[in-house]
């Protein structure tokens, strides 16, 4: 009984903190319509700040608690909130859900970056509870610390105060009105901006309170741990459907108590260590369940056309041309760059392949997925299990599994391409046969012999993507009715789950497939010893393990193939259905489209691509660890950068992958090297190095607000002008100059830097010159309408131009009569 009480008290205290944190989330959401992913990070940052002022032995330190508290909660936190609103969130009006999600994620990464930067080093930072560790009182045998008591009191007071503020004061009502209709608030004489700043300040204070209160309950301050702790509060916020404060508070308490009781129960269970590990993911599991069980909003028709993002569809011809350009560029580069750069580029391209899965799922179909790297990680693990097979004990099991997976994949995905009944049957059978042949004839089916193989096989990659596809379908199946933010949160929950439960899994799991082999067809040690060594591929006599350049070119070809396939897909009737689903799910439902099947198929397909890319990425890196490179944070960063690049385009994925894998590292290296060379400016260059390494991605994400369609398309648009005939000369000369510079580099006349310094300016000068040239010609061509028929003929083109200018609907009668006249 005493034990029960103790765990109840602990649960109530943490639950109360979750309640506070989630109430802050609800406040910003109901008043700005933005789900503040950075909420946890703000709490984390505040906890660090408080520690600095109160406990650090160096700077700050030993401020009296009330002053330190007042500073953190009532000066720092509101300023953070107001600045966020002023600089970042204000620009989000009229953008899509994706952008509204990515920018707070960028802010979160920025806070993580800043905190890592300011509070560097592995030093243990241990905040103490209020009134010390020993300040406690008791009920019977159960001790309750003052810290716990304070937490619960603060939570209750805040709950009442917030409720009162939002519903009974003019300030609160205005804050809620702003979400509904900011224009009308203005017409009423209110100031939407001021009101939004107030609500962001309040939200940020709530995050800070939660952060400061929770930090002493942990062993010591940890950036990611604290951020994730507040993520636990998401479940509570969803429990209150992001608007109901009392329900949110109850949700927080329920989560706190469940975790605490789980600890109590699983403490004794040494038999399944992973069960007690579940305590860290329990709130996430609850989040997932709450998302699934709560009644969803009715299908909402997006305000089509009013969004600021616009994506064009490139033609097949140009996509193939660009593919050739990319592969030849990469091949050309591989001749002149060092293998370190080759490795970086390869990494970027494999990441870009993973990014393609997001282009399909989020860019084309409008479904948000925050777990791209969780799927990639599963692909890598599957490839490892299959190819290296350190834990796969019997072969037939795996062959059967592979064919089953192939069948499932076919049945799920093929109908989406318009294959039904007999055609479907034929296609699925053919696909199964293909996979079976791959697996059986190329890899054999028996024994642990695979373990001795030292290279990744094609069938390994295929099976990896099939397995990931099946996981994708399994995740999508329950989540299929979720949309937008809710779907994003569900996938986020899944990503955290994979982070904590799969990558940390050390148990050997055994499965029995009926009718095949003996009782243990499949025994898998998912992530043995915290690192998996995955070999490079080797086929057609090329050993990709030895030749980094070969790997680079191989990967670039694969990227191009998938890209062209995706663009083709986008143009097909399947692609049009996806776009329709993205633009207006409500309209699609009324048109009688089967949205469930569509969603399931696109999820499955995207997961397959992610799994494939993940296996390639891992094989390129040769080894993956539990904390690199497929964690939730890296996933968020990749997602964000792909959106920055333009998630509606395959080029956006390319941009995202390359920037993610190379750009910031290169920039960091660059400044680092300068710091070495110029000792006296060391501080400046070190600063810049840290700046780019820690904050680069986040700042790129925050910049997205200005150009929600992404930068990749902008760059391509810039080059579009060069396709005009009159600019052929410029293209020719420019390419020749670059080719010449490349040649000089190949024969070692000068080094890589000179090559870059000569070719980049030429490359970026070309579109500028082209534009000037075209403008010049247009000016000369520009003749007034009155001269029609005199200076130039009445072409159809000219007539439709005039029609458009005068907004006259084109008149076919007129044209006909003209033809008759002639």
């Amino acid at each position, binding site marked *: 009984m005493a034990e029960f009480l103790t765990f109840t008290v602990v649960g109530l205290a943490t639950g109360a903190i979750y309640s506070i944190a989630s109430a802050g989330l609800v406040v910003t959401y109901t008043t700005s319509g933005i789900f503040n992913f950075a909420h946890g990070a703000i709490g984390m940052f505040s906890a660090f700040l408080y520690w600095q002022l109160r406990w650090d032995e160096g700077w700050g330190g030993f401020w009296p608690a009330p002053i330190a508290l007042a500073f953190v909660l009532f000066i720092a936190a509101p300023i953070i909130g107001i600045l966020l609103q002023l600089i970042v969130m204000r620009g989000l009006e009229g953008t899509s859900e994706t952008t509204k999600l990515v920018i707070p994620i960028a802010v979160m990464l920025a806070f993580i970056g800043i905190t890592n930067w300011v509070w560097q080093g592995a030093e243990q930072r241990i905040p103490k509870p209020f009134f010390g560790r020993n300040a406690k009182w008791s009920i019977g045998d159960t001790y309750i610390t003052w810290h716990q008591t304070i937490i619960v009191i603060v939570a209750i007071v805040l709950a009442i105060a917030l409720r009162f503020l939002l519903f009974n004061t003019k300030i609160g009502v205005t804050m809620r009105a702003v979400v509904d209709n900011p224009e009308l608030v*203005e017409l009423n004489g209110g100031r939407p901006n001021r009101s939004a700043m107030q609500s962001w300040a309040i939200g940020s204070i709530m995050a800070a309170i939660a952060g400061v209160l929770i930090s002493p309950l942990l062993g010591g301050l940890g950036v990611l741990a604290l951020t994730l702790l507040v993520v636990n509060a998401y479940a509570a916020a969803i429990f209150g459907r992001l608007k109901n404060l009392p329900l949110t508070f109850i949700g927080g308490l329920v989560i706190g108590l469940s975790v605490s009781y789980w600890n109590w129960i699983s403490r004794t269970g040494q038999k399944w260590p992973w069960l007690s590990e579940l305590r860290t993911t329990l709130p996430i599991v609850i989040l997932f369940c709450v998302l699934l069980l709560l009644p969803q909003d009715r299908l909402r028709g997006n305000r089509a056309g009013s969004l600021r993002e616009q994506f064009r569809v490139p033609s097949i011809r140009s996509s193939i041309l660009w593919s050739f350009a990319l592969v030849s560029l990469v091949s050309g580069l591989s001749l002149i760059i060092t293998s370190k750069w080759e490795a970086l580029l390869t990494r970027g391209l494999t990441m870009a392949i993973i990014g393609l899965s997001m282009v399909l799922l989020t860019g084309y179909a409008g479904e948000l997925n925050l777990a791209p790297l969780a799927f990639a990680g599963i692909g890598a693990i599957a490839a490892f299990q299959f190819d290296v097979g350190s834990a796969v004990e019997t072969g037939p099991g795996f062959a059967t599994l592979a064919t089953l997976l192939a069948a499932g994949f076919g049945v799920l995905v093929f109908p989406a391409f318009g294959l039904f009944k007999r055609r479907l049957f034929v296609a699925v059978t053919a696909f199964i046969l293909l996979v079976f042949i791959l697996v059986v004839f190329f890899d054999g089916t028996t024994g642990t012999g695979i373990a001795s193989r030292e290279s990744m096989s094609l069938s390994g990659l295929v099976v990896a993507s099939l397995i990931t596809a099946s996981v994708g379908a399994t995740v999508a199946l329950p989540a299929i009715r979720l949309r937008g933010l809710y779907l994003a949160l569900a996938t986020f929950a899944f990503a955290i789950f994979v982070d904590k439960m799969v990558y940390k899994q050390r148990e050997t799991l055994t499965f029995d497939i009926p009718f095949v082999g003996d009782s243990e067809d499949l025994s898998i040690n998912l992530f043995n010893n915290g690192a998996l060594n995955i070999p490079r591929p080797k086929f057609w006599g090329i050993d990709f393990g030895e030749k980094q350049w070969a790997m680079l070119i191989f990967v670039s070809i694969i990227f191009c193939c998938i890209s062209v396939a995706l663009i083709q897909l986008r143009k097909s009737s399947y692609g049009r259905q996806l776009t329709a689903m993205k633009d207006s799910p409500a309209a699609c439902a009324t048109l009688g489209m089967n949205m469930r099947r569509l969603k399931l198929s696109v999820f499955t397909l995207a997961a397959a691509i992610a799994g494939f890319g993940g296996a390639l990425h891992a094989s390129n890196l040769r080894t993956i660890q539990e904390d690199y490179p497929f964690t939730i944070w890296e996933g968020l960063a990749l997602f964000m950068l792909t959106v920055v690049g333009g998630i509606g385009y395959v080029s956006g994925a390319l941009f995202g992958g390359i920037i993610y894998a190379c750009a910031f590292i290169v920039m960091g290296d660059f400044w680092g090297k300068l710091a070495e060379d110029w000792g006296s400016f060391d501080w400046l260059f070190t600063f810049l190095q840290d700046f780019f390494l820690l904050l680069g991605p986040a700042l790129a994400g925050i910049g997205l607000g200005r150009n929600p369609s992404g930068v990749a398309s902008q760059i391509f648009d810039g080059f579009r002008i060069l396709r005009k005939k009159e600019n052929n000369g410029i293209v020719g000369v420019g390419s020749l100059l670059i080719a010449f510079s490349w040649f000089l580099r190949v024969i070692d006349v000068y080094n890589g830097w000179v090559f870059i310094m000569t070719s980049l300016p030429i490359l970026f000068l070309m579109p500028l010159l082209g534009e000037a040239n075209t403008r010049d010609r247009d000016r000369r061509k520009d003749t007034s309408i009155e001269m029609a028929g005199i200076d130039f003929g009445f072409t159809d083109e000219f007539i439709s131009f005039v029609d458009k200018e005068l907004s006259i609907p084109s008149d076919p009668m007129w044209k006909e009569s003209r033809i008759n006249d002639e």
Partner: protein
Amino acid sequence: MTPLLALHKINAGYAEIPVLHDVSLSLYPGKIYALLGPNGGGKSTTLKVCSGQLTPTSGDLIIAGKSMTKTDPSALARAGICTIPEGKGIFPNLTVRDNLIMMSKSGIPTEHIEEVAYQRFTQLSSRARQTAGTLSGGEQQMLAMTRALATDPAILLLDELSMGLAPLIVGQLYEIVQQVASGGVAILIVEQFARTALEIADTAGIMLNGRLVNEGRPESIQKGLKHAYLG
């Protein structure tokens, strides 16, 4: 008499697309001006210029003799311009009472607004805690009109008050408009369906392709109306 609100040679548009060309009109205290015309003519755009929601590319917005061209809408609202925009001028996710509280942003105490609302529209008093979005179309428009009645504006701008409402309710609403006008308020009403609007208007204008093509007494406008709509 000096106009309370005057547009002087306004040119305005959205992004690159010009919509209004040289529009000038004046609103006088106690008078109702009806702006009529076919869809897409630029009526709502004109109203947005009056309320400060759209800054004109050239021309002047003059209020009580002072140029207020670049003033933001919330300041204009506090200065006594009451705008009820196209569609519903309410907050659908707030309760009726919260909507009334929002009206007090203009400086009139909430108690007074509530009193006027519940007296005037008795059916609202029993729905004070209902979410405004779940009210019937007529009730929503009544709620919106409460602002015109209770916040004591000097200028009232109404966009398509009658949209989607039964003739009976439209009649009621226009009675209220007339009553407000008799208190000395300058009123601009924008309408698709001319008949009711012309009945109560003192002046009417027809807007076609962003130009004010005809302006005058309602009777004379009525004659030219068919021509304007049918081209």
